[in-house]
C-alpha cells in the first residue's frame, strides 16, 4: 500500500507545473554561471588567488576546467536550493489542507503515517532528481564546455590539487552528501507543513530557519560557535565541501583517495540523518493526532 501511495504522491508532484520551476531555475543559474566563467573566468580565479599571485604564476587555463566550474557552481547555488526544496515539501500537507484535498485523502483506508511517509519519500525523490539535474548541467555541461583537468580547490590561504583520476568518486560523494542535507530540509518543511493549513507559512518558515542558523554560523563568535553551531544543521549541510579538501604528505603532495577530515564528514552525515529522523518522527506524531478541520 505504501508504494501505491508513493506512486500517487510522485504523480501529483510531477503533474504540477510549479515542480518544474526549480528545474528551470537551476538550469538557468548554472548556464549563467558557466557563461560568466567562460567570459570572465580569469577574474573569478584571481579573486581566490589574490594572495598567491605574487608568489607564483597562476596557470589560469589549467585551473579553469569543467571540474573547477562544477565546484564553483555548487558553492554558489547549493545554499539557495533549500528554498526550492521547501517550495515542494512545505506544500505537501499544508497545500493539500489549504486546497481541501487533504480531507479527501484522509477518508481513504490509508494510515496517516503511511501518507506522511509517502509524502516525505516523494519529496526525497524530488530532491534526488533535482540534484541529478544539477549534476547534469554543472558537471557534465561544464566538462563539455570547459574540458577536464586536475581540480584546484582554494581553502583560505591553502591550495588543494586533486588529480582527475581521483575526482569522480568525490563528486558522487559530494552530491550524495548534498542530497542528505536537502532531504533533511524536506523533512523540516514537512514537519512545519503539518502545523499549517496554508503552504506559504511552512515555505517561509523553512527558509527563515535556514537563514537564521546560517547567520549564526557566519557570525563566528564564541557564544554561538561553542553552543549552537556544532549542532546546527546549517553547519553540517555544507559538509560536502569536505570531499574536496585532501590530505597532504609532509612535502605538501596530495594523497590520492584521501579526505582531510573523514571523521568530521561522518559526524556531519550522522547529524543530518538524526535531524531528518527527528523531524519525521515529530511530524508523524503530530499528524496522527491532528484534527483535520480544513
Amino acid at each position, binding site marked *: *500500500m505504501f508504494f501505491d*501511495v508513493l506512486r*500517487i504522491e510522485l504523480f501529483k508532484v510531477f503533474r504540477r507545473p510549479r515542480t518544474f520551476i526549480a528545474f528551470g531555475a537551476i538550469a538557468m543559474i548554472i548556464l549563467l554561471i558557466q557563461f560568466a566563467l567562460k567570459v570572465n573566468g580569469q577574474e573569478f580565479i584571481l579573486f581566490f588567488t589574490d594572495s598567491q599571485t605574487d608568489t607564483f604564476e597562476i596557470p589560469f587555463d589549467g585551473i579553469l576546467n569543467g571540474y573547477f566550474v562544477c565546484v564553483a557552481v555548487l558553492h554558489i547555488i547549493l545554499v539557495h536550493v533549500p528554498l526550492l526544496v521547501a517550495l515542494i515539501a512545505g506544500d505537501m500537507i499544508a497545500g493539500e489542507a489549504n486546497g*481541501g484535498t487533504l480531507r*479527501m485523502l484522509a477518508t*481513504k*483506508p490509508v494510515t496517516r503515517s503511511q501518507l506522511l511517509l509517502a509524502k516525505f519519500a516523494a519529496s526525497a525523490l524530488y530532491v534526488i532528481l533535482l540534484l541529478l539535474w544539477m549534476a547534469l548541467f554543472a558537471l557534465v555541461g561544464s566538462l563539455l564546455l570547459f574540458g577536464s583537468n586536475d581540480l584546484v580547490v582554494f581553502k583560505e590561504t591553502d591550495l588543494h590539487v586533486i588529480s582527475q583520476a581521483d575526482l569522480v568518486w568525490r563528486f558522487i560523494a559530494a552530491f550524495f552528501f548534498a542530497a542528505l542535507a536537502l532531504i533533511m530540509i524536506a523533512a523540516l518543511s514537512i514537519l512545519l507543513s503539518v502545523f499549517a493549513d496554508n503552504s506559504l507559512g511552512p515555505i517561509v518558515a523553512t527558509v527563515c530557519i535556514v537563514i537564521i542558523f546560517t547567520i549564526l554560523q557566519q557570525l563566528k563568535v564564541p557564544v554561538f560557535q561553542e553552543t549552537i553551531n556544532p549542532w546546527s544543521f546549517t553547519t553540517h549541510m555544507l559538509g560536502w565541501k569536505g570531499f574536496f579538501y585532501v590530505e597532504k604528505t609532509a612535502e605538501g603532495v596530495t594523497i590520492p583517495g584521501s579526505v582531510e577530515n573523514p571523521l568530521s564528514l561522518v559526524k556531519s552525515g550522522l547529524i543530518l540523518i538524526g535531524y531528518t529522523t527527528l523531524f519525521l518522527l515529530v511530524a508523524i506524531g503530530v499528524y496522527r*493526532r491532528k484534527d*483535520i478541520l480544513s
Partner: protein
Amino acid sequence: MDSVLEVKGLTKRFADFTAVDDLSFSVPAGSVYGFLGQNGAGKSTTIRMLLTLIEPTAGEILIFGKPLASNRKAVLSKLGAIVEKPDLYKYLNGLEHLRIFSRLSGICPQEAKLKDLLSLVGLGQRLTSRVGTYSQGMRQRLALACALVNDPDLLILDEPTNGLDPQGIADMRQLILQLSKEQGKTIIVSSHLLSEMEMIADQVLIIDKGKKIVEASMETLVQQAASLELQQQPQRRFFLEAYFLSLTTA
C-alpha cells in the same frame, strides 16, 4: 432493519466549546438518512468524526457493527464520502482523480469501470478535461464519483448540493435516489433544508447546538409538522422550513 451506523454518546469539545454534545443515533441499512441542522449546528463536526478526520472527545461509533476506532482501515474501505465543498486537484483530469482514489482505496483501477462511473455522474464527455476547467456542479459530481470508486456500502455526503444551481441540485438528488434504490446503498446526507430532505430521505435526524432534537422517519416528521398548524404557510416547502426553524431556534 439492521443498522449500518450506530453512534452512542458522541461528543466533541474544542477547548471550552462543545460542538457535538452526547449525540446518539443509528442509520438503518439501505436507507437515505437525512442529517439536518442549521449552519454551525455540528453536522460537519459529526461527519468528520464518522470519517476519522477528527477524534471524538467521548462516545462510540460503530460502522458495519465494528468500532470505528479499532477498525479504521476495514471500515473506510467500504465507505465513501464528500466532506463539505469538495476541492479537487485542479491540474488533474477526472479520470486521473478516479485512478488516484481507486489506488488509495486499495483497488487496482480498471479504465472501463472508471469511465462508466464518470458516465454515471454525467461526466462521460469530460473525463480527460482538467478539473480547473470544471464548473462547481461538475466538481461536485466528480467528488461523488471519487466517493463511489470503491463501490461503498455506506455513502456520507456533507451538504452535497451546496453551491449547485437548480439543475445541479435536481441532478444530485436524482443520483442519490438512484444509488439508494437501484444499488441499495445506505446514504447519509447532511443539509440545512428540510424540504430538500423530504424528497430523498427515509429517516431524518435534526440537531441543534450539537444536540439531538428529533430523530424520526420523514413521514412522521411531516405529520408532526402538519399537526402544528403550520399549514397556513403558502407552500409545502415553506411549512416544512417553518417547522424546521421552530425546532432549531427554540
